[in-house]
């Protein structure tokens, strides 16, 4: 029944897949490059070492991956090709021609820009994973591959959890499953339903990439894993003075003990990594020594008394990124007001929403250079002030709102691009009322509705109609 690694050799054929080359042998499986497939991309076979002498974990994690991988779609996950039966276990999947994140570990600490770039890529992949109902629960450098185009691919779903399927691992094992440096505090406590566990692991990865040190070390035993519940890590700026306060803010927020103190979603994290000037700095940013034992202990006790763990779906739904696009240069007050009313209604239903206020400004090609001088700078700052003024009545918490000016010769294209890059969930735009303007400029909102990768609300002021 068990696939015996000793007996597999190049040239062997497993259900039509010819084994070409043994790429890797891990603790639970071996990975073979195979040929003779119909796929138009290279394929590997993952063959688990299934032994029926008590190694239940490898069996259950193989089943878990076999169930979850076929349900994932998009560039951030290996394409599923086929899976073998119970008696002939294997999973055939796309071979990711890219660079494993492990490669970067040879040159730690990395340049800060590189840490940020990798952080954005991995956060983007995580968001796509969470949107497909899956929590990875074993995110670590071994499980991330960067495609040549820069996209991060997450592999190995052996410990993953699909929030609409039975959790095969949950009650089969009394001990938590995970990897020493990266496992989240709540996983150590046995919770496998919170997507923010993956954000904790990503925080550990970013800390490691930026400092060369693991914030919680590499404990091998579960007793050692528990220390992260009450031991506060050394602030990363202490280890690398090139880390800016805002990046420390982000990293320390990700590795908070209480999931409610972390980012609510990977999309919101990616957003902050791409807009550092908008990160609200707290005491975390300036911290230069680890918190004392008692302080962390009190956080842990709070966590144990009052578990805040959220299910995946609820967590994502409660923390969308909402972008609202305004053209305040258009001097009629009715439309901005109508947009504000609509925004208020939408925000009322989602307590953890992040609001991005965008001042969209159409410019001609000639103007682009003009905006670089001092006059241009002043105009830019005035627009930010106008945006902030517009948003005051919404009374959104400071850390949940950002202001940006988008200048483009094609505002619709710029907004669509913005929505895609920032994983916006909901875009609110105004409709121009005047048909004359529409005739000359085309309808910006119609193009956005047709092409934006998210929900779009088009607001029209009744006063204008």
């Amino acid at each position: 029944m068990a696939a015996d690694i000793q007996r597999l050799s190049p040239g062997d054929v497993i259900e039509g897949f010819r084994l070409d080359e043994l790429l890797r042998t891990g603790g639970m499986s071996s990975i073979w490059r195979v040929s003779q497939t119909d796929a138009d991309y290279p394929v590997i076979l993952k063959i688990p070492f299934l032994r029926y002498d008590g190694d239940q974990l490898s069996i259950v994690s193989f089943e878990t991956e076999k169930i979850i991988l076929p349900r994932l779609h998009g560039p951030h996950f290996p394409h599923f090709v086929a899976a073998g039966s119970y008696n002939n276990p294997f999973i055939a999947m796309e071979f990711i021609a890219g660079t494993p994140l492990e490669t970067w570990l040879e040159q730690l600490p990395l340049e800060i820009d590189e840490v940020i770039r990798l952080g954005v890529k991995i956060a983007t992949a995580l968001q796509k994973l969470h949107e497909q109902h899956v929590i990875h629960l074993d995110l670590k450098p071994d499980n991330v591959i960067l495609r040549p185009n820069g996209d991060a691919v997450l592999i190995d779903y052996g410990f993953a959890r699909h929030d609409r399927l039975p959790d095969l691992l949950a009650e089969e094992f009394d001990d938590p499953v995970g990897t020493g440096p990266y496992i989240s505090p709540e996983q150590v406590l046995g919770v496998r339903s919170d997507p923010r566990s993956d954000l904790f692991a990503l925080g550990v990865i970013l800390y490691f990439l930026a400092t060369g040190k693991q914030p919680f070390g590499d404990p091998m035993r579960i007793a050692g894993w528990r220390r992260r519940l009450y031991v506060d890590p050394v602030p990363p700026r202490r280890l690398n003075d090139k880390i800016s306060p805002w990046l420390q803010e982000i990293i320390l927020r990700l590795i908070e003990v209480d999931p409610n103190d972390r980012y609510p979603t990977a999309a919101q994290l990616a957003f902050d990594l791409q807009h550092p000037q908008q990160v609200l700095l707290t005491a975390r940013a300036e911290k230069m020594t680890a918190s004392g034992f008692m302080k962390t202990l009190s956080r842990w006790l709070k966590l144990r008394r009052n578990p805040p763990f959220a299910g995946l779906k609820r967590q994502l739904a409660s923390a969308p990124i909402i972008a609202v696009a305004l053209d305040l240069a258009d001097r009629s007050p009715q439309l901005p007001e109508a947009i504000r009313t609509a925004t208020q209604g939408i925000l009322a239903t989602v307590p953890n929403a992040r609001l991005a206020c965008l001042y969209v400004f159409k410019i001609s090609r000639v103007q682009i250079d003009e905006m670089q001088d001092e006059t241009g700078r002043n105009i830019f700052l005035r627009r930010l002030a106008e945006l902030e003024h517009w948003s005051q009545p919404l009374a959104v918490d400071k850390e949940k709102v950002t202001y940006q000016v988008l200048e483009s010769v094609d505002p619709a294209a710029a907004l669509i691009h913005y929505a895609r890059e920032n994983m916006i969930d909901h875009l609110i735009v105004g409709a121009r009322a005047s048909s004359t303007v529409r005739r000359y400029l085309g309808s910006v909102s119609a193009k956005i509705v047709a092409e934006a990768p998210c929900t779009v609300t088009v607001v029209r002021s009744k006063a204008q109609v």
Partner: protein
Amino acid sequence: MRIALLSDIHANREALEACLGHAAEMGAERYIFLGDYVGYGADPEWVTDKIADYVAKGAIALLGNHDAAVFRPDAHMNDIATAAIEWTRTRLNAKQQAFLQSLPLQKQEDDVLFVHASADSPEAWHYVTDSAAARRTFEASKARLIFCGHVHVPCIYRITTTAKVIEFTPADSTPVELSPIWRWLNVIGAVGQPRDRLPAAAYAIFDTARNRVAHYRVPYDTAGAAAKIRAAGLPDVLSARLLQGY
């Protein structure tokens, strides 16, 4: 092969029609009815004839406790269920009653068992409402997969290699792999009288080729079914509960 599994129809024509229509759209190729075609609802004749039609075309229909109570009074039934059965008996003709009487308690095909209530003494109509009851069912049968009804609340139980019984509430329309490493018990929800606070009719499709089961919820005309129950003079609670799914 996609097998539609329908249980606890309880003389609810509107709910059965909605589920049969949904199952046909989902590509069901075979039908297995897990019992309780009558009792509570206002359309016992229509439902019984419909099931008999399906059986004539190759479907399997098992006996439920309400069906059995039509020809064999059941002292364990509560007053409301008994009142509904007494009314039902007056509505069914001899042929319909004979059809119910001909139904088997359970049916095993290879390593799959179909039964109305717990496999542990099926004629005793034990409810599989928790892990302990599920364990008794697992112990009473050698089948790898067991499908039953009777509870009116959908649930999936799995017994692990370390003999733990684990309960899972299936998500609507999401296929669940019934991995051959374990044994699985699927409690199919009720077509005609759901009791999990969701009024939509419940049924499931078992895909034998892909070895997975999907539980579905199908909205139907609950107001119409409830109005007929009131018009028939059956106890008020039987119509009221359809609207709220309790």
